[in-house]
């Protein structure tokens, strides 16, 4: 039995299970929630199995249908891939459990949510395991299309225009990436990432395609100043969808950026410095905008803009301290996925309870839903980077990388950014304790919704303890 379990093609199953689940959920609209939840749990198990395989035996490769690359499609999983797969599995299961209850009173939304979300999950898992540049393009597009459809799910005017803008930006980003792929194939005659890293020799014929690909991915990741589309899309979607977009979808394009960077290891200091400066600007701009927002979900969405900036601080620091800088950035991405997922789920519960999400009008949330407020506070702790949270480990590693090479500027950015994060989290918490001058409707929030957000937030805080186990997985992946 255990041999059979170890030999099963888990990498392929992690993609096929959600895909099959999506089709079944679409064909059986009445049972879509049940089918979706079941397929989600199975997918998470498959992702976990891939992680165990990689942890035990190192890098894994699987040829779909037995056809070898370049004609066939080869799946590859290494330490970085499995960390991302695990992140998707954890956030995905939490969002699935939450969404089943959250959407229960709108049957037409349920029918559409589950197939789209499972398609998104399949695209994410395929993206994290794709081994060549063109398959990455296809998975990137699959992810973008299902994410856009999920934003449009709520059907309101702001959500539709948010989705439309997101779609146009996403298509532009993937086209830019595709142009890069075309030029790369022309220059080196292969799209396999492993072969490309051997053949790529620098110079203009690498710089132009890589530049086009990176620009497209920055657009899709929403790094300042390309973040314009992000807050409207993430802020106007339904709560579980926002959690997926902010937690997972932007991380996928960041993962792809890292993967390209590790494959080609471009030389020179200009581009890393530029990316780092944009990241620093994103931290300040996003935090200040978050402080100015009147609506809770927009505050959380701008916080995503700020936290994405942190991920790019690693680029200028990686020259001298690659392990610390990249490790910190990746760990920050993992913990942000969980913390921001939990924060959006908590915001969704607060919105369900009060029927609105005006921050100034929050009415004694702490008395009415202590669990949800605890989830919000705990995810805020992880975002601000207080120990022992995952955010603390990531920021600490980045800080160490900055200190050991005497880059005080970057260290200052990291510290001040943390303070700003704490400020906007406490702004929400402050209003949660007070009584609103106006009367608001009150609805009961199912306990499942409150507990899911709390468990996910606790996971983000406790993620710090998993670092000694998770970080060694990255050995051999980092340049």
């Amino acid at each position, binding site marked *: 039995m255990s041999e059979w379990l170890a030999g099963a093609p888990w990498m392929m199953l992690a993609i096929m299970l959600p895909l099959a689940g999506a089709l079944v959920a679409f064909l059986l609209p009445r049972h879509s929630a049940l089918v979706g939840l079941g397929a989600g749990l199975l997918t998470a198990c498959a992702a976990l199995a891939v992680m165990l395989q990689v942890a035990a035996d190192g890098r894994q490769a699987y040829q779909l249908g037995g056809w070898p690359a370049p004609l066939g499609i080869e799946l590859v999983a290494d330490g970085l891939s499995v960390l991302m797969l695990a992140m998707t599995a954890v956030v995905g299961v939490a969002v699935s459990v939450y969404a089943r209850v959250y959407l229960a009173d709108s049957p037409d939304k349920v029918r559409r949510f589950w197939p789209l979300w499972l398609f998104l999950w399949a695209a994410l898992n395929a993206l994290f395991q794709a081994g060549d540049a063109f398959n990455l393009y296809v998975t990137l597009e699959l992810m973008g299309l299902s994410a856009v459809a999920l934003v*449009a799910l709520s059907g309101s*005017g702001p959500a539709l225009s948010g989705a*439309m803008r997101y779609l146009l930006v996403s298509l532009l980003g993937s086209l830019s990436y595709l*142009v890069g792929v075309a030029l790369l194939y022309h220059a080196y005659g292969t799209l396999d990432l492993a072969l490309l890293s051997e053949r790529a020799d620098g110079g203009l014929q690498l710089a132009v395609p890589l530049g086009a690909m990176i620009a497209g991915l920055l657009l899709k990741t929403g790094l300042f100043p390309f973040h314009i589309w992000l807050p409207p899309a993430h802020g106007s979607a339904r709560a579980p969808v926002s959690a997926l977009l902010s937690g997972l979808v932007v991380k996928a394009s960041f993962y792809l950026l890292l993967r390209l960077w590790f494959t080609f290891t471009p030389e020179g200091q200009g581009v890393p410095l530029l990316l780092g400066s944009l990241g620093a600007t994103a931290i300040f701009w996003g935090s200040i905008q978050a402080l100015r927002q009147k609506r809770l979900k927009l505050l959380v969405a701008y916080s995503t803009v700020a936290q994405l900036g942190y991920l790019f601080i690693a680029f200028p620091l990686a020259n001298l301290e690659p392990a610390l800088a990249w490790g910190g950035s990746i760990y920050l991405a993992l913990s942000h996925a969980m913390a921001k997922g939990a924060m959006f789920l908590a915001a969704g519960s607060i919105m369900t309870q009060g029927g609105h999400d005006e921050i100034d009008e929050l009415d004694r949330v702490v008395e009415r839903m202590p669990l949800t407020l605890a989830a919000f506070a705990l995810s805020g702790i992880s975002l601000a980077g207080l120990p022992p949270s995952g955010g603390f480990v990531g920021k600490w590693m980045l800080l160490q990388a900055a200190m050991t090479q005497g880059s005080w500027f970057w260290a200052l950015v990291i510290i001040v950014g943390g303070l700003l994060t704490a400020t906007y989290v406490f702004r929400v918490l402050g209003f949660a304790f007070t009584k609103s001058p106006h009367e608001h409707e009150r609805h009961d929030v199912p306990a499942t919704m409150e507990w899911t957000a709390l468990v996910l937030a606790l996971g983000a805080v406790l993620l710090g303890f998993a670092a000694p186990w998770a970080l060694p997985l990255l050995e051999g992946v980092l340049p």
Partner: protein
Amino acid sequence: MSSGLLFACGGLGLLAIGLWALVLRAHLIRKVLAVNVMGSGAFLLLVGAGSMGETGVDPVPQAMVITGIVVAISATALALALVLRLANATGKPALPEDRERDLMDEGGR
């Protein structure tokens, strides 16, 4: 000038035209069309760059273009459906920031 190079340059031209329209035009159908023009440009670049070698035409770029066309069709279908929904919900096929503009560009540019 080989035909491959000609195709590749044509592709780059289409990309530029598409980008220009995508950024400057307000009507969403025009934006969707612009993305399609850009897509054709990218495909032309793929095929053109692929046929520039000495060994004859390479099948891999052709396979990629076919996959790319499937993706582009799905994206266009989704985009058009969204445009319809948006026009029904808000009364005008434009994003909020472009709503004040003359969508038919009759006033010239």
